[in-house]
């Protein structure tokens, strides 16, 4: 009898997690990832241009 109960609990937990993922907003994460990406791109370009100017 114990097994089916556990199974039911798991599927319910999975369903609620899925729903949270669907509804969750990733705007803040997106902005921070883009800020980090922009920083990497800018610093790479600056260093590469410094290299070219000294070539």
């Amino acid at each position, binding site marked *: 009898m114990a097994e089916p109960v556990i199974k039911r609990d798991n599927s319910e937990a999975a369903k609620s997690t899925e729903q949270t993922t669907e509804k969750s907003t*990733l*705007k803040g994460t997106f902005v921070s990832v883009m800020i980090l990406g922009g920083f990497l791109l800018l610093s790479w370009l600056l260093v590469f241009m410094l290299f070219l100017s000294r070539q």
Partner: protein
Amino acid sequence: MNVHIHKLEKIWLTFGIAMLIVFLVVLGVATFSMGMAPPSHSHAIDPEQIENTPPFDEPGLKQVGENEYEAVMIAYTFGYKPNDLTVPVGATVHFKVTSPDVVHGFAIPNTNVNMMIVPGEVNHITYTFDEAGEYLVLCNEYCGGGHEFMRTVITVQ
């Protein structure tokens, strides 16, 4: 299995992967088709026999083309041989440098010339001196008590 990737997640993954590809392609093209490789070369020499091994038996500047020179140099504790080089403006100089004793550096500040001189190896770098002036050459690898006096000047006129 149903993998769901959020729309914004797709955007930043694409951005990240595209950036990585662009960086690697730019570096690859610059290295292999434009010769912008870092100083590195598999060229061995017996550090105890440098004085008897050509071209290091006669260190100095040799003209190898129109305004193109080969500078054969020895970096030792604590100096460079030959000590003073003079080249014309616009000269392309192919440096060949080795060490008979310990690890030295060979750096010209504000240029891309910066390499390690390891005993047993000959290191190569090419630089075009487009502007007249005095170019300081420094050792930037700690090589002993007189490390800070290890320098020479390349005069471009």
